[in-house]
């Protein structure tokens, strides 16, 4: 069972465009994390969101946690080729000790 559904699965855009990727679930999460993975490397944490409705900004990246803590979005403004990579959301809905669950990821390519 995939608790975290990410969309779109693939995204190919030109430099300068804006984009949004989504991470949705029917379960409530105590927190959600976003990671970026570049080819041939392990994922690297971008942000953790904890509070429903929370918005965090990291330069051109804006992360939002849904009010009901069931969904999150990542918005990139004026995408650059360096943003190319696989974006993964991760969280835990077990309610007990943390068992990490990752979404399948959104593969982003930004063309110069």
């Amino acid at each position, binding site marked *: 069972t995939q608790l975290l559904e990410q969309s779109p699965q693939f995204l190919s855009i030109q430099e300068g465009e804006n984009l949004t990727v989504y991470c949705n679930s029917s379960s409530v999460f105590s927190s959600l994390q976003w990671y970026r993975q570049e080819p041939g490397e*392990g994922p*690297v944490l971008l942000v953790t969101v904890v509070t429903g409705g929370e918005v965090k900004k990291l330069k051109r990246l804006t992360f939002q946690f849904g009010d009901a803590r069931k969904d999150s979005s990542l918005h990139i403004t004026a995408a650059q080729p360096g943003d190319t990579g696989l974006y*993964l959301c*991760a969280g*835990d809905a077990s309610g007990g000790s*943390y068992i990490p*669950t990752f979404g*399948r990821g959104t593969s982003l390519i930004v063309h110069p």
Partner: protein
Amino acid sequence: DAGITQSPRHKVTETGTPVTLRCHQTENHRYMYWYRQDPGHGLRLIHYSYGVKDTDKGEVSDGYSVSRSKTEDFLLTLESATSSQTSVYFCATSPSGASTDTQYFGPGTRLTVL
């Protein structure tokens, strides 16, 4: 960056042979994890450890075993490799295992089972 290394980085083996992958960390993190990453499936948790000799199963543990005899080392063993275990394997660590902890990932091991 947390010092996490994986060995080997690449391995090709034959069906039915045993394989052991090693993860080594220098950060003294309590929690360690093994994931596999396959196209269309994302990262799936195989096993994790919450201390020396303390391990538990993840989502896709069948066919895999783990051991942790020292804080810094976490071994993943495929007792009898099958072609379905061809994948990229990632090790990760976190300080306390909390959902808000950063997970630090190693560079991955690409395993091919022929």
